[in-house]
């Protein structure tokens, strides 16, 4: 998954060009940015919030914020870094909101609401999936999702950015605003905590 994310990310130069076009008023360029980064951002917020519908709303809000503040982007960092930063802040605010907390009490984690349209769309990597394998995978995913969700926010952030999104330490430091040593130590503690929660279940 990490390799796929890196491929779909594209070059930062391509992003910069699109951003400049959007800043000049090109709405189609904005659509291009959305289409290029939507899955990456959606995946990030999904594993962070632990709910598909919440992730959908949060991801949409992230891109809307990007559009509204596109003129503030100074090209001092990569567009993706800036985009991730906005996504993390949007997730953080959403976690604090009372609506989210109320919803978390009523809707269990990993149980998508509504009809089949809101079911998460997972890529099936196994070429010859058996029903047993699929069920096992689904169960394991659910376990991991709950374990990640239960981590403290600071640890959750670094684990998702590093182990799920596959970002390098330096970019994680840039996105979170932490220094490199803190990112490494936090990641070490997060992995240990996650391992302990999942001990014997995988």
């Amino acid at each position, binding site marked *: 998954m990490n390799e796929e994310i890196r491929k779909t990310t594209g070059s930062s130069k391509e992003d910069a060009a699109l951003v400049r076009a959007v800043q000049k008023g090109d709405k189609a360029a904005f659509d291009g940015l959305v289409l290029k980064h939507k899955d990456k951002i959606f995946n990030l917020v999904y*594993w962070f919030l632990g709910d598909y519908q919440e992730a959908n709303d949060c991801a949409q809000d992230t891109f*809307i914020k990007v*559009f509204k503040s596109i003129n503030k982007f100074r090209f001092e960092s990569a567009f993706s870094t800036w985009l991730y930063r906005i996504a993390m802040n949007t997730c953080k605010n959403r976690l604090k909101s009372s609506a989210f907390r109320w919803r978390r009490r009523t809707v269990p984690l990993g149980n998508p609401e509504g009809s089949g349209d809101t079911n998460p769309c997972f890529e099936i990597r196994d070429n010859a999936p058996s029903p047993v394998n699929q069920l096992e995978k689904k169960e394991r*995913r659910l376990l991991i999702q709950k374990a990640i969700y239960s981590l403290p926010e600071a640890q959750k952030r670094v684990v998702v950015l590093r182990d799920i999104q596959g970002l390098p330490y330096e970019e994680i430091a840039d996105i979170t605003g932490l220094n490199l040593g803190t990112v490494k130590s936090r990641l070490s503690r997060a992995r240990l905590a996650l391992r302990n929660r999942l001990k014997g279940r995988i």
Partner: protein
Amino acid sequence: MECARIKGHLSEYIDGTLDAQTRVSVEDHVSTCSNCKAELASLSALVEELGALETVKAPADFLEKIHEKMEPRTNFYRILRKLFVPFHIKIPLELAAAATMVILVVSVLDIQQAGKQVTQIPDVATFERFDREPEAFHEVPAFRESVKRPAPVFDPTIVRPSGSEPVVLARKGLAKSVQPDFEREPEPMAPAIGKAVSKPPVWTGLSIELALLLKTDVSGRGDERGAALEAMPPVESDLAADEEEKTYIASFKKKAMKQQAGTVSGIKREDLKEESRSLLPQTLRGSALKDDSKPSLAYSYREDSLSRVKHVIQSLGGRILSVKNELQKERPQSLDAEIPFENYELFCEKLGRLGTLSPSPPELRNKGQETVRIQINLIFSE
């Protein structure tokens, strides 16, 4: 100790971000330590598992939803949204609006009822209290047209209340005599403001009635009357009186002294009571009254007293409305005057120097009236 240090580097070792020296030390330790080896294995599996998780993709209409959120909302859309607001939001809002309306209606009704109470006319009971208290001043008409018989407002024989029955009866008689002899028109009832309160009645009338027992000289001798006049302490206003007033005062005194000294012959004997005659100087007692047109000593005394009272009134900017005489005896009985309200206290002070006021002048509250009407019943001690 070594295991703890190595465990701290395992995460970076998995990511391949350790420096060469640290990486070698970790590998050497792990090869010899089973615990750290197991720890490394479990962490590596976890990281691998996390890396293998499927990507959760955005829905197909993701971009379309973003466009919808970013588009400006038209009035029609806004109306639609308002109409189809979810019930769990709509109902509480409507309830809140209904509750607000109820509160407003109740408040308006409350204010209207309060306004009605203010304009309500009180019943007679609130005015009956005035009549029940005999010692309070009654509201008398501003001007008394005529007096059929004298009302003894002040009786010197009933001076000191001792609580005995005769005194009580005298008091009642006194109270009764204060009331006017003729019927008066019922006073218009003033609207009561607020609820009836059991407070003592407050004098707010514009006219009062006083009795003045006019002073005479202590010995009763007429020849010393001039001295009594001279000895009379000057009132403050007299000191500040203008020239005209001073001239009047001086001539008044001169006249009184003249009468005492040289015009005794003009006094009518029949106008004097026996006691007054006995007070006359010896030289004058046997004098025949030759000139009946000239006033008697007693008559002069009464006229002087009246003049003094008149002067007091006029000096304070007041005016004399009428002077009533006793029908049979042709002597001044009472005087109706009107003085400025602001000079009322000074007027009472000046009047007090001329005689004894009874009852004591009441304190008046300024209700905006400009003048006070006073009826002074003159009582001569002869």
